[in-house]
Every structure is written in C-alpha cells, then in structure tokens.
C-alpha cells in the first residue's frame, strides 16, 4: 500500500554492546513516509537501546542509520538531524521549570531560532492538537501523567519532525489515563505522521500499525501486519510471547 512512498528511516545491521552485554545483534529495518510501526518484545531486549541509537543518544558500535538522504551514524552535526526526529519518553521528561507552553516552544526558539511571538503561536497550536491549550500556563508538576505525555507529544510535534519515536509512552500511566494518550497517537497516525512506537498496547497496534515487529535477544525475530502476526505468527517464540501478553493482560492487553 505504501510501497511507492519514500523511505524515511533506514537501519542497517546495527550492533550495540554495553561492556560484555551484546544488546543489539544486527538489527535492520525501514519505515516509509506515513507508516506506523510497533515494536514489541520482552523487557531487556534492546528496544529502548534501538530507539536511542536512532537519534544517536546511544551511538551504535556498528551498522548504519539513515534519515532520508542523511546518514545519522557518522554525521558530524548530529544535533541538526535530531531536530527532525521527535522522541517521546516513557517518563515524559518534560522540562520541570517550564510551563506546558514553554516546554513546547523552547525548541522553536533555542534550536530553530524562531522569534518568541511566532514560537508561542505555533506552540499553542500544537497544544491544541493534543487538546491541552487551556493548560498552556501549567507547570509539569501541575499536570496529570496523561496530560504530561500529551504535552511531550506536542513538544515533539512542534519541531515538525520527519519521524517520531515513542518509547513505551503509556506504560508509566494509570490505566484510566492511557486512552487519552493513545487517542492522540491514533490521530497522528491517521494524519500521516511517521512513527516507530515501542508499546504493548495490542488494541492500539491492531488499529493503527502498518507492521508489528517482534524483537528478542537483540534481533528482530519476526515482523508483519498486526492481523497476520497476532493470529498466525510464523515463529514459535512470537506466538509464545503474544500469548503471554494476552494471558497477562487480556485480548486488548496492555503493559
């Protein structure tokens, strides 16, 4: 369906070790414009490491990563490429000393050099996009977890990224707050944002993912459309992992 769209992110044989711990053992994948891919796998498998390799917060030991035409690995000015890759953290990591508006606009003023007035206007638009324009002057400590994560998404959106990486965006949230964050992410996916999401929200994966990627032991074990992967996985391990997920959390399992 998306075959004719350009490839936004390409990862080729990425390896990463921490000391003796060989975490990523040759990961390759690609994402085309407008696709949403969901990354699943047991804890400690290297999902977060893979995401931070993509924006070079964790430089890989070997392998190459491209964002459109630019090779991220080996780039001298990584910060210029990072602007184009949004990152949403499990623990939100909002800037504690700034209001919601300040969190969203600081990248525009400091990184993009936009003037304050324009940045403010754009930041308000992004907050509106996640349904939080009335919280613009609240500080992170005055927001619920779900609101914090929506501000974090607005902060990523403000930079007009080519791609947004989400690292378990709902797993630090109380169950009743998960829906509002997934709702925003669903909207983004439908608007054509390119997204790579680590998440075990199976319902979400089923409704928005173009592809689900199962990772274990530092390699991609299996990948495919959610309908196929969830109902008839080709690899035994995938099936075991999925049944453990739904066994733990029910059909619409959540982690």
């Amino acid at each position, binding site marked *: 369906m998306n075959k004719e769209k350009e490839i936004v992110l390409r990862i080729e044989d990425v390896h990463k070790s921490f000391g003796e711990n060989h975490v990523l053992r040759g990961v390759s994948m690609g994402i085309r414009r407008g696709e949403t891919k969901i990354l699943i796998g047991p804890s400690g498998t290297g999902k977060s490491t893979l995401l931070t390799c993509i924006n070079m*917060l964790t430089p890989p030991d070997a392998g190459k990563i491209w964002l459109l035409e630019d090779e991220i690995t080996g780039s001298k000015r990584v*910060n210029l490429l990072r602007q184009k890759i949004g*990152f949403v953290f499990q623990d939100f*990591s909002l800037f504690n*000393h700034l209001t919601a508006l300040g969190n969203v606009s600081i990248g525009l003023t400091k990184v993009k050099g936009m003037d304050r007035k324009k940045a403010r206007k754009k930041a308000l638009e992004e907050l509106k996009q996640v349904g939080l324009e009335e919280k613009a002057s609240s500080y992170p*400590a005055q927001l619920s977890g779900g609101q914090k994560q929506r501000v974090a998404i607005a902060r990523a959106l403000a930079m007009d990224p080519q791609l947004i990486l989400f690292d378990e965006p709902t797993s630090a949230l109380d169950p009743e707050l998960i829906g509002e964050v997934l709702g925003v992410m669903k909207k983004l996916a439908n608007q054509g944002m390119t997204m790579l999401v680590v998440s075990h929200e199976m319902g979400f994966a089923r409704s928005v993912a173009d592809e689900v990627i199962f990772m274990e032991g530092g390699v991609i074990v299996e990948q495919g459309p959610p309908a196929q992967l969830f109902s008839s996985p080709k690899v035994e391990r995938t099936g075991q992992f999925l049944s453990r997920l739904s066994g733990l959390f029910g059909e619409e399992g959540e982690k």
Partner: protein
Amino acid sequence: MTFWQVIQQSWSPMLDGLQVTMQLTLLSIVFGLALGLFLALGKVYGWKPLRWFCTAFIEIIRGTPLLVQIFIIYFGLPPYGIRLSPLEAAVIAFSINSGAYQAEYLRGAIQSIPSGQMQAALSMGMTPWQGVISIIMPQALRRVIPPWTNEFIYLLKYTSLAYIIGTPELMAQARFVASRNYEYFQTYLFAALIYLSIVLVFSEFFGWVERKFRIPGFEFHK
C-alpha cells in the same frame, strides 16, 4: 560604661568596619560564584584533564585552612613581586576559598537534576551547551539556593579572619575600639549583634528569592 554608652561611642568606627565587611563578603561571594560555576561545570561536563584540574583545585582548597590560604596570598606572594593590599589579598583568598565550596554545592545541584532532562534537550536538537544553559542550570540554580545561602552566611562570618592581615573590617574595628575603651565584653557583644542582624537580613532575603523562583507544584525530592 553601659552597653548603650559603648554603642554611642563606637558606632561610627564599627559602621566603617561593617562597610568593609560587606565589601569583602559581596565581592568574594560574586567572584567565588564565577569561580564555582567554572569549577562545577568543568568537573561535571569537562574533558578529563579539566575534570582532574577542577577536582584537584577543589580538594586542595577545601583541605587546607582558610587562614593558611590568606597568609600565603598576603605574606607569601610579595617575594615573587606580587604585592597586595590587605583588602585585595583578603578578597582573593575568600573568593578562591568560597569558590571551591560553591563549586561543590553547584555540582551537587547539577547532578541532582534527572538525566532524562538532558536526554530530552539533546533529543530535540539542542547542543550539550544549550542543554546545560537552558535546561539544567535554571533548575540547578534554584536547587542550590538553600546551601548557597549557608555558604554566604559562613563567608560573611569568616571575613572576620581578615583582621589578622590588617583589613579594617568589623572585627578589626571592634578590636581597635576595645583596645581603647577596655570594654571587651560589651564591644565584642556589639560586634556580634551587628553580624547577627546582617545574617538575619540576608537569610530572609535569600528565603524570599527561593520562594519567588520556586517552580509551581514542584517539590525537589532529596
């Protein structure tokens, strides 16, 4: 003499002394802050040689008596052609000494900011330096106000050591007054009360600053 008479007779030289004390304190705390910022940032973010230099500097200053440092600067440097007035020597000694202590408070504050803050700053395309200036320091400086207030109060009181090299600050003036009126107890009590009131004024002031810059809803957890 009654205490009141001592005050009436000595307030003028004592206030001169207070003025020098305040000069000493304010200059030293400001220079010390600049030095402390450099040392703290160097120790946390610097490349290895700078980190070692900052660590060694801080440890040497904190590991040796303040009085020895004052004597080295005032009595030890003239043979090498560096002649300083008592006030200059005292300001330099106190700035260096306070800088080392301020550096440690600042380092603690910087390192208490969760690492995710810097990760988030870098992820949006900030340079490490932008992350330090725009994200880490605004939080660390708020965090450092209480220990920094203590350092200010210590420094204010320690400036009394400068009387030894002849700086005409409050303690030196009190000694001078007492050597004339022989009312040691009352004269030094007067000096003590002046120190105490200045300490209280500044504690209040920095408490106000801390409250003013407090982040709404946010409590630093130790």
